[in-house]
């Protein structure tokens, strides 16, 4: 369905709904609707036009026109069209109708909107706190423009994680707390599992322990060309994806066309990142199953990619390559040659490893029919990347919305119908080889020329939405340009954001033994800071600390007054 048909369809069904529509280019469509009609229109876009929710953002525009703006961004993957659906909310009455009952994938987006902007999604089935920490005051919404970036809330001594009450069938079950620190989850995340024997009958999640307020920092302190360096620090594995996506969003908003060579270099780096990320995942997944031989071999094979990136950029990770308008370093002929040689070796070794792993019965026994996510659920929760493609949802930003060098390249995306972890493994294995083939094509076709475009002042109040296929799935950034040489609003939707919402579905009726690999199967990327642990108070026999005791201990050990 193209833009005209979509508008016509909405006009026909809901004649009064559309207030405005603009189409700055053939790939973007901005629609404005009233709060009262947004559910109808969203339902039409999601269920009739079969679009996918990729992002939502709430923006405080009160300093300019005394409104809040809520934007839901949909993607019509087959038509290379991104539709932004906007509603305007008066700050005096910050309520919007929730879309979660129509689009299950909107769940976290709306909870985040409530936490950070104080816009209440009415009718949300699960309006618990999601992003801000447990001790954050109820009435401070950090992304509102009147909250300073360095605001520190008063110290609170009694807080409770916002876990839900057990459902009827979970009341008899034992509670198994996994996290906030758990050896197999490399990052802090708290899963509360309700188990009967070995079987998981329910699960609950509390994350965002490492929310760092990067978006707020960007809107208040940093400038356009400083943001790529902090964007890169969002993730330790696919950092380049974030800086590239941010730059692409700004370039799109400001109509900057970057030089072809820069496009190729960015794409090569993106694919190199995919190669090492997928090998890293394969190793970790095997490790979750106690198969450390595969872990060690996969990481050994992966290591030369890190050496390559070090040669290209000076760093193994966090490359500092991207700026708005292009890239900072070239790939010369000698390096290109080395990339090809290294990749040849990696390809050969990965083939051996993958064929050994695929033929291994014990791996198959652990991965088949485990962590099932049906095609239907995958679409509803709007999962992306290998998780979606393994459930038969054939989406890949590189193919659906070719960006950078991808329009010139010839490749096929990997899709599996198995819906289980085995399928996710096969998808990632195939993608590793595709990535290597893509890098070869790019090096062969690489155009000569500049690395940076001329970038003039970036006009304010433009919007850019960029989506890049990260190793974990599509990563989306939304930028509204601002007047003081910095984004007015920058929203990052990393690929794990939708995937994590699918975890409860995958865990249902699986066993405790499956837990690490199920969570691992989405290749989760939480983030990387620390927080005080809470201890199980459910089981009577455990030595139990009260929250106050724990807090007192942590305060004693870390030194009073650090925060006050």
């Amino acid at each position, binding site marked *: 369905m193209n833009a005209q048909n979509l508008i016509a369809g909405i006009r026909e069904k809901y004649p009064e709904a559309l207030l405005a529509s603009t189409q700055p280019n053939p790939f973007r469509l901005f629609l404005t609707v009233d709060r009262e009609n947004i559910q109808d229109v969203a339902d039409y876009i999601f269920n009739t036009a079969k679009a996918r929710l990729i992002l939502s953002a709430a923006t405080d525009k009160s300093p300019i026109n005394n409104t809040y703006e809520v934007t839901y961004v949909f993607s019509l993957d087959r038509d290379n069209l991104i539709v932004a659906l906007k509603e305007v909310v008066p700050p005096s009455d910050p309520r919007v109708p929730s879309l979660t009952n129509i689009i299950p994938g909107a769940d976290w987006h709306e909870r985040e909107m409530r936490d950070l902007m104080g816009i209440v999604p009415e009718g949300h089935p699960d309006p618990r706190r999601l992003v801000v920490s447990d001790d954050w005051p109820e009435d401070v919404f950090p992304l509102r423009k009147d909250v300073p970036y360095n605001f520190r809330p008063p110290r609170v001594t009694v807080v409770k994680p916002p876990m839900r009450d057990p459902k009827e069938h979970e009341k008899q079950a*034992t*509670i*198994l*707390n996994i996290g906030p620190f*758990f*050896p*197999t989850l490399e990052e802090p995340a708290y899963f509360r599992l309700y*188990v009967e*024997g*070995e079987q998981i009958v329910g699960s609950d999640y509390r994350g965002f322990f490492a929310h760092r307020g990067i978006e707020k920092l960007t809107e208040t302190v940093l400038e356009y060309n400083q943001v790529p360096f902090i964007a890169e620090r969002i993730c330790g594995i696919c950092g380049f994806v974030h800086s590239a996506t941010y730059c692409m969003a700004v370039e799109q908003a400001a109509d900057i066309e970057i030089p072809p060579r820069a496009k190729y270099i960015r794409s090569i780096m993106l694919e190199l990142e995919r190669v090492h990320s997928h090998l890293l995942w394969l190793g970790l997944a*095997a*490790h*979750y*199953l*106690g*198969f*450390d*031989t595969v*872990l*060690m*071999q996969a990481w*050994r094979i992966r290591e030369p990619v890190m050496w390559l990136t070090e040669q290209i950029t000076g760093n193994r990770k966090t490359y500092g390559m991207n700026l708005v308008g292009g890239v900072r370093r070239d790939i010369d002929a000698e390096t290109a040659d080395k990339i090809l040689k290294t990749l040849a070796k990696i390809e050969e070794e990965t083939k051996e490893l993958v064929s050994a792993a695929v033929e*291994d019965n*014990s*791996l198959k*026994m*652990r991965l088949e029919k485990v962590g099932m996510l049906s095609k239907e659920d995958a679409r509803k929760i709007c999962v992306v990347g290998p998780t979606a493609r393994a459930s038969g949802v054939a989406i890949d930003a590189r193919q659906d919305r070719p960006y950078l060098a991808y329009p010139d390249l010839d490749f096929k995306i990997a899709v599996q119908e198995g819906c289980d972890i085995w399928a996710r493994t096969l998808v990632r294995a195939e993608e590793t080889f595709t990535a290597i083939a893509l890098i070869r094509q790019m090096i062969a076709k690489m155009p000569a020329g500049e690395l940076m475009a001329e970038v003039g002042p970036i006009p304010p109040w433009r919007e850019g939405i960029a989506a890049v296929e990260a190793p974990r799935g599509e990563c989306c950034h939304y930028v509204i340009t601002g007047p003081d040489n910095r984004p007015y609003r920058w929203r990052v939707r990393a690929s794990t954001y939708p995937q994590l919402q699918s975890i409860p579905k995958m865990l249902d009726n699986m*066993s*405790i*033994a*499956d*837990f*690490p690999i199920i969570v691992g199967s989405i290749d989760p990327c939480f983030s990387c800071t620390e927080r005080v642990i809470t201890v*199980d108070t459910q*089981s009577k*026999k*455990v*030595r139990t600390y009260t929250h106050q005791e724990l807090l007192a201990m942590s305060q004693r050990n870390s030194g009073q007054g650090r925060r006050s």
Partner: protein
Amino acid sequence: MTHVVIGVFNILLVLIAAPLVDGILRKVRARIHSRQGPPVFQTYYDIAKLMVKEDQGGTNGFLFNAAPVVCLASILMAGLFVPMGGVVPLGFAGDMLVLIYILTIAPVCMCLGGMASGSPYAYVGVNREIMLLMVVEPVVAVTFIVTAVKAHSLMLANCIERYVSSPPDISMIIGAIAFFLVLQPEVGKVPFDIAEAEQEIMEGPLIEYSGRKLALLKWSLYSKQIVLVALLVGTFFPWPRTGSLALDIALTLVKILIGTVLVEVVAQVFARLKINQAIRYFAIVIAVAVTGLVLAVMGL
């Protein structure tokens, strides 16, 4: 006199040499992983480190405190029944049955200690351990009965004497295979380290242990490995008998090393199974072992 000397030797082997064997296995594992691996004596350093580390206490119940000691003691005791160079230090009529019982003490201790710790992870681990015990221990018992039936004796030394002077029997080979297959769960190695499963339940029953008690439990796992492999090679691969006791003992040691390395290699080429998959697997192993027993009764 020989029996006393061998007895002391066995105890020393099971206690002092076990960490060395583990160190060698760590090297083997590292080679399979394309790693360099820690020094061969690393396991001694680890145990020494745990010995001087602060004991976090855990629950401090009697069971919790006693379990590690009894666990290691039971393994040492089992060491007295292990044939070394064809000699069983503490042999008496019916020693085989006693041995089967003693061998179950260690996992039971692990379970009791785990239960006493009260951690939900330990409960899950103990559950799994008990389920595994139910399917693994019968295999051990049946394979011993196969040897007993063949030798018409419940005394381990007699069985070995009988077997060393005769060619391999089909029932004994089946028994040996079945016994080898239960080594992985018995010593807690992949694919059957289900009860400990570090990535799933953080070492299950061991989770609350620390310091000296943890050292004892770890040590008993290393020792148990030697005891079981020594039993396997002593009972099912007694050849060749050279006539010189010293040479026989040296040969036994080589066989033990080969056996443990085999177990380690198996552990490195599989993923961990789930408990229900493991039980299904061992049901088959039990059937195999019982087939061996039937053949033995038929005189094969």
